[in-house]
């Protein structure tokens, strides 16, 4: 039914994860922002916890059971709530939590039970982007050629999160360049495989606790069974759509990251406002408030809107509904909204918004990536527009 009071189970997850985040991530957030590329050894505490798990599939195509208990929430919504809380603690650290890479999400989404067995407990990064292929994932040039019982991969992948720390990487490559998007498949490449090299790590605006790197694949040979999904190249772009479907899961997750970072910023701002004697009471005409308060209220309203879009996308996934449109909506709104909220907080905090003595300046740097990766705001708008206008890719380019 249409009813948006958060169920008790959601509140329980939120409170639990908030405590974890507040005690384990927030205290070391600044440290690893400054010590860029140093592995946060404190995160070892998370090893063994399967963050991106999923129940084993019944059968292909079979609809997942809907959650029956009205107080229970589904896996996707649970993940969304968890991600927000973790990113409230620190987004860069959250991205560095062992076994919680985007590659893990991809594996959880499409792996066979056998693959889940092999890779489910490994830390999996995701390698899609190439130097000449960012938003246009269909144009990637990394190749995978079947040679006996192996795939042989060649190419270069940039902007891989957890590049240094992960155990394996889900690599997008084409098995048939002529086939265009239809030829694009994803493969699990394990660290240590010959021909698979981490070239360098990036220095970034934000999420500096997270190690972003470039991989080179040079005749990198992996087992035939490491392909995710079917190896068959169909004439249609069904296969590529399958690969892209991962995004319907990961985009709300990125939206949830933005919720966490933006809320952290707002919480600090409220604290400082209250210290300065400005109590928030959510009742006055906002134009009768101070400029800071009105800005704060508007930002908080935006955060709430972002969150509802994100919860909706996750809730739909939990109910087995196709949520491509809603996933992009959540990402478009939350990516941009988080960027603007954290910028605004650093403005209304005055000098406190600029100094590294507070985390506001960091959150402003961190959140900006959430308007970029997993599809920029522009790409999300394209997807939304094509959906609501019922236009093809060639009609709306």
């Amino acid at each position: 039914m249409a009813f948006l009071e958060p169920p008790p189970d959601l509140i329980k997850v939120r409170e639990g994860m908030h405590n974890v985040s507040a005690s384990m991530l927030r205290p070391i957030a600044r440290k690893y922002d400054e010590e860029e590329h140093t592995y946060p050894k404190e995160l070892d505490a998370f090893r063994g916890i399967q963050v991106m798990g999923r129940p084993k599939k019944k059968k292909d195509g079979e609809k997942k059971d809907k959650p029956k208990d009205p107080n229970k929430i589904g896996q996707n919504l649970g993940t969304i709530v968890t991600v927000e809380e973790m990113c409230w603690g620190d987004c860069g650290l959250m991205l560095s939590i062992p076994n919680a890479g985007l590659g893990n999400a991809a594996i959880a989404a499409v792996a066979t039970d056998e693959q889940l067995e092999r890779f489910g407990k490994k830390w999996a990064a995701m390698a899609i982007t190439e130097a000449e292929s960012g938003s246009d994932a269909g144009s990637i040039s990394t190749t995978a050629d079947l040679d006996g019982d192996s795939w042989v991969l060649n190419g270069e992948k940039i902007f891989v999160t957890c590049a240094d720390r992960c155990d394996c990487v889900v690599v997008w490559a084409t098995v048939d360049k002529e086939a265009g998007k239809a030829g694009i498949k994803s493969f699990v490449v394990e660290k240590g495989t010959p021909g698979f090299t981490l070239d360098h790590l990036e220095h970034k605006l934000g999420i500096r606790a997270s190690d972003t790197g470039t991989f080179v694949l040079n005749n990198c040979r992996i087992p035939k069974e490491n392909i995710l999904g079917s190896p068959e190249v169909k004439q249609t772009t069904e296969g590529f759509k399958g690969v892209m479907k991962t995004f319907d899961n990961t985009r709300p997750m990125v939206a949830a990251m933005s919720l966490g970072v933006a809320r952290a910023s707002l919480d600090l701002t409220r604290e400082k406002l209250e210290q300065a004697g400005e109590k928030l009471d959510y009742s006055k005409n906002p134009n009768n408030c101070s400029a800071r308060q009105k800005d704060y209220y508007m930002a908080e309203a935006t955060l709430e809107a972002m969150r509802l879009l994100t919860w909706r996308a996750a809730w739909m996934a939990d109910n087995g509904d196709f949520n491509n449109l809603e996933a992009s909506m959540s990402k478009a709104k939350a990516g941009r909204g988080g960027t603007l909220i954290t910028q605004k907080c650093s403005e209304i905090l005055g000098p406190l918004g600029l100094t590294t003595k507070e985390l506001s300046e960091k959150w402003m740097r961190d959140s900006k990536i959430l308007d970029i990766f997993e599809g920029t705001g522009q790409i999300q708008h394209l997807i939304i527009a094509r959906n609501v206008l019922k236009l093809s890719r060639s009609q709306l380019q």
Partner: protein
Amino acid sequence: MFGFSLTKEQKMVKASFAEVVRDIVAPNAHDMDENREIPAEYLEKAWELGACVAAVPGEFGGDGMEYSPMLNAIVLEELAAGDMAFAVAAMLPSVFINPVLEMGTDSQKKKYLPGSCGEKYQSSTAAVCEPRLDFDAMSLAATATKKNGSYILNGAKCFVPKAASAPNILVAAQLDDKPQLFIVKAGTPGLEVGQREKNIGLYALDTYEISLKDCQIPAENRLGGEEGCNYARFIQKGRAAVAALAAGECRASFEQARDYAKKRVQFGEPIAYRQSVAFMIAEMAYEVDCIRLLAWKAASALEVGRDATRDAYLAKIYAGETAMKVCDYGVQVLGGHGYIRDYPQERRYRNSRGVATWEGLATV
């Protein structure tokens, strides 16, 4: 149960109002606006569906159904997608009925509800807004003073729908430092209903300024009797309602922009093929959802009786800012055609500006 999809019942109610909108409201919205009048028979179509009285117990003449702010939010959106003035007019009785039902004394319920639930509603109304720059629903300039078993009301109110014909007006006034609600009967000495207002929007709805000059009412006319009422909750319901109205107005604006952009050909192709237009429409699409979901969240809290102060506040300020933006885009996509009154986008542009300002104009 938590969720984002409508139940069968919610869908049914929505569909029945959507039908009235499709058959009566939308086709006549332009004329109602230009003629500054909503024909009574149109309103009756909405009332036949139980708008406003569904939750009134049978003993008082209502349908005795469970009171559901969520369902009201759905209905408000649906009606406002047809015309916002119509939506306010159709749901207006409830700004009187709901508070009396929920917060009135037994004798207030007995006295006022049956008269409000007859075949034709007596459109009682509420007076919350005040004609000043810094109007604040939680801190009113209108005052109520207790004196010899009566309350003496003073102050000015604006945007009071149907004040000239309403048998009773629920007036918000400051009693000591606390805003409260008072039932003022038409014709009470000291109550003066001004000329019909002319405002930027809602042309079809007749609203009035009223002034209260030492207007004396019996003590029993204070809503909730001596203990008074939960005025904050009344305001929260109004805020959620305004957000729901905005969702409807914006949805209609989005839909027209979307359809127009696909048909309108410029430079050899539908303008929808241009990112600048398509992205505006994409933004409208999710902003409509944002407004609706915020309204629903507040309504859900009100439904379970949880304090909705924050949710209702955020829903209203978000809707206030965003409805203006969405309806602006709605005009922009249509270009010159959006500027002429033949197309409803221009009306939506005018109506949407009130969202940030109105209080107490509707209720969930």
